[in-house]
């Protein structure tokens, strides 16, 4: 007798709601573990446990397996998802993390849009025959919001993935003049207009699919295509926020508390990151989304004298090695160039060689260095660089005056003193790593090509700066060999 009773108890709404509350409690507690690297692993596992509780509770719901095929369809979906997700998570390289995150954002947004589509069909196409799912305005508004934002996020993330994976060119692709913004606005108006018409009571399948899903899809593509590679940290964060908010909207439509809370956590996280990235570039989010800032990432240019007519001092690996070996403190400022050259392990070797010579080595990490928030930290963590050597911009800036040599590896705009000194510069006002305060600066660079922003860097013409041209990985390895030989 006790077995059926307990089974019934497990299926009651109260029990399932209680599970949902436990689930979102675990998720919030888990996310609060991410405030430090020591507690983060446990935090992530706690959040995963919360997710497992939410999924199991949903499957316990009475009527969950109504219909003969339901259980198999759920198994098929979960098996496909696991078969794709597990190998992807196991095998992805740390240099490819921005692409991975973009793709994960995309599938989340896609799932929201598909769920909204099915909800819509339940509401209208079956003529309100399902009593448990009427289609009141309040469900409608949130579901349609989810459909629009989820669809934008799905397609936008795919474009971001394509750009990061270099399937698509990283440079901005856009219509001439203000046509692009105008077209985007028209698409948004059509999508929102369709949503309003549907809310007003029209039961048009066509309006939903073409007006909302398709317009939002085209809009997602057009929003991300004009945005250049170096603005990717902002775009990825923004799409992350979109996916979270659309998930929360679906949660309201389905009146499911754990979906609301989880979606809002992601929405808050994405919003905070977007804001921090935009601040670190001294640009507004709308101006980044409008796109077109900067030209090509790798403008071909010859070494030697730059556009501003100053002279550049080229140096050799052997000279750099001597300079570094006799320094007391060396600060390494990495940028996207280090990721492209996959030079993080070589950098770690150089750090070890210098530490054997009693040189203090620290890393200066600009918030927008790389293609996503925290990109440099993950790469250096992969190369076994202890995280306490990595300093944030505000911590390291006062230290540059006490630094003998700053080694810049594939970073440009984030070290450009024009942001501080030249009010006319396009990047004026952007917070930078104040590397020009250190006694000497060595820049590892492929060529004299300007950075993503296409702005000349006066740092390169500074008398205390010397340049070592070539592939970052090869250059760092050469320097390490010279240091060890000393």
């Amino acid at each position, binding site marked *: 007798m006790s077995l059926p009773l307990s089974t019934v108890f497990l299926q009651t709404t109260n029990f399932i709601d209680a599970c949902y509350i436990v689930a*979102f409690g675990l998720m919030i507690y888990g*996310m609060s573990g*991410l*405030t430090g690297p*020591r507690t*983060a692993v446990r935090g*992530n596992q706690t*959040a*995963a446990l919360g*997710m497992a509780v939410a*999924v199991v509770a949903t499957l316990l*719901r009475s*009527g969950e397996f109504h*219909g003969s095929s339901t259980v198999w369809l759920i198994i098929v*979906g*979960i098996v496909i*998802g*696991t078969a794709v*997700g*597990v190998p992807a*998570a*196991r095998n*992805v390289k740390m240099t490819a*993390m921005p692409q991975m*995150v973009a793709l*994960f954002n995309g*599938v*989340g947004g896609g*799932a929201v849009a*598909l*769920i909204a589509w*099915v*909800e819509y*069909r*339940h509401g209208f196409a079956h003529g309100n025959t399902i009593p448990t799912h009427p289609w009141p305005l309040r469900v409608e508004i949130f579901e349609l919001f989810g459909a629009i934002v989820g669809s934008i996020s799905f397609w936008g993330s795919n474009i971001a993935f394509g750009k990061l994976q270099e399937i698509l060119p990283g440079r901005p692709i856009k219509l001439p003049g203000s046509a692009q913004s105008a077209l985007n606005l028209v698409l948004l108006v059509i999508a929102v207009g369709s949503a309003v018409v549907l809310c007003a009571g029209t039961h048009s399948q066509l309006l939903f699919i073409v007006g909302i899903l398709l317009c939002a899809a085209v809009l997602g593509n057009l929003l991300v295509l004009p945005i250049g590679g170096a603005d990717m940290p902002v775009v*990825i964060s923004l799409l*992350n926020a979109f996916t979270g908010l659309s*998930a929360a909207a*679906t949660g*309201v439509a389905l*009146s*499911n*508390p754990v979906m609301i809370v*989880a*979606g809002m*956590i*992601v929405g*808050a*996280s994405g919003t*905070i*990151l977007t804001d921090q990235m935009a601040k670190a570039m001294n640009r507004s989010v709308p101006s980044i989304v409008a796109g077109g800032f900067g030209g090509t990432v790798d403008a071909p240019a010859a070494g030697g004298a730059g556009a501003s007519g100053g002279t550049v001092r080229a140096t050799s690996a052997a000279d750099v090695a001597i300079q570094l070996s006799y320094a007391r403190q060396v600060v390494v400022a990495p940028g996207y160039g280090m990721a492209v050259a996959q030079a993080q392990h070589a950098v770690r070797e150089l750090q070890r060689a210098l530490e054997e010579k009693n040189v203090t080595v620290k890393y200066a*990490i600009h*918030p927008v260095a790389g293609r*996503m*928030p*925290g990109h440099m930290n993950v790469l250096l*963590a*992969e190369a076994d660089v*202890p*995280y306490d050597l990595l300093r944030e911009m505000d911590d390291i800036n006062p230290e540059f005056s006490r630094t003998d040599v700053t080694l810049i590896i594939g970073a440009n705009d984030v070290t450009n003193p024009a942001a501080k000194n030249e009010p006319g510069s396009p990047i004026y006002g952007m917070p930078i790593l104040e590397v020009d305060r250190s006694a000497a600066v060595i820049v590892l660079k492929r060529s004299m090509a300007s950075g993503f922003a296409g702005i000349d860097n006066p740092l390169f013409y500074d008398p205390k700066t010397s340049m070592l041209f070539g592939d970052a990985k090869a250059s760092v390895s050469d320097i390490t060999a010279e240091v060890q030989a000393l």
Partner: protein
Amino acid sequence: MDSLVIDLAVLVLAGFVGYAVISKVPNTLHTPLMSGTNAIHGIVVLGGLLLMAESHGVLEKILLVVAVAFGTINVVGGFLVTDRMLGMFKHKDPPKDEEAGQ
């Protein structure tokens, strides 16, 4: 109280809680934060699971299977990759520090 009002209250409060919790995450952990939130928004898989039993016709079933698969990719892939990444973050001389901490 109307269930919509409760849902909206949860929405607003969760937004503030999320903001308070995530504001404290240091720059060092921003990439794991992003992949972790990728996993969390995989919660949409619940939407797919909830609607599956009520779906009619082949189209809806296909849409929902894809939605469940997408959500599962997020949940499974997101948590695994975050775990893998966080395992790489090491303190200087980790064994000593752990002993000191205990």
